[in-house]
């Protein structure tokens, strides 16, 4: 039995971070959540560099929940780097953002995001969206990586 895999949450806003963690907990999604507070941290985590020097980059998170507007390196740039690297090319990435710009949706899918979810402003709706995300991406969806079973 493998340990439950990690969810990488890339989110710079502490309120949104707290909200997402609460929503995950409320929905009994008990995967460990690693929070990267900007794009650079996210990339360092995934590739085992910088502050995550020595981390095994083949030990991929189950999914990445990626905000778009981030300091240092934004979500689009993170996604570009992930899709360009064979190790993370197929990693499921769900853009989770407050942006409703059609351009951002198109850009996100164009760069290879698996899904694009707008953060609902209302907390209950947000919890519901996170529940569905968890259900879909952690339970129903088949991961591209072999070996790791469903988190059940």
């Amino acid at each position, binding site marked *: 039995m493998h340990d439950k895999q990690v969810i990488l949450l890339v989110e710079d806003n502490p309120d949104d971070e707290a909200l997402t963690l609460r929503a995950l907990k409320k929905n009994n999604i008990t995967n460990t959540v690693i929070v990267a507070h900007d794009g650079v941290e996210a990339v360092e985590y995934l590739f085992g560099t910088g502050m995550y020097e020595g981390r095994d980059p083949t030990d991929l998170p189950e999914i990445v929940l990626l905000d778009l507007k981030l300091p240092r390196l934004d979500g689009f740039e993170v996604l570009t780097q992930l899709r360009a690297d064979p190790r993370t090319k*197929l990693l499921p990435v769900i853009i989770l953002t407050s942006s409703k710009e059609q351009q951002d949706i198109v850009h996100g899918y164009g760069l290879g995001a698996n899904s694009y*979810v*707008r953060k609902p402003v209302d907390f209950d*709706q947000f919890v*519901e*969206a996170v529940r*569905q995300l968890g259900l879909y991406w952690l339970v129903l969806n088949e991961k591209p990586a072999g070996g790791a079973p469903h988190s059940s």
Partner: protein
Amino acid sequence: MMQSRRSGRPVAPGATAIGTRSVKENIRVHEKQAILVVEDNANDEALILGALKNHRVVVARDGAEALEYLFGAGAYQGRDPYDLPQAMILDLKMPKVDGFQVLTKVRADERTKLLPVVILTSSTDLQDVLRGYNLGANSYLRKPVDTERFVEVVGTSARTGSV
């Protein structure tokens, strides 16, 4: 009748000829948001339609029909290829043109390359999972899908945009 039910759009010239085409019998158009379901197995089709009963669904019975729908060719001559379905649910093993071939064509065309594609298949072959993702599938679901959960998620996806 079929065309006008689709979205209230004007019936394109040429599309009226669809009534005489045998493929018409195989492509059924339902109301509401269009999700393109590409499925050759009648039992699976019934299950999927049940799960998507609150959505507007277009069913293509093989890969060739799916491509005709998407690109406004053949039986769907005149359909605007820019009028994308909300998503495509794609079986892999199908007659004529299989799911991988459909996906390859969809990703190679500017008009359809961003269409969210969910592979829904009974294949348990990891090679198929990898191939699907490598060809640009957004998601891969294995049959039998937990229908209750599938309904729950897809049933509200229009609101949250999460699938």
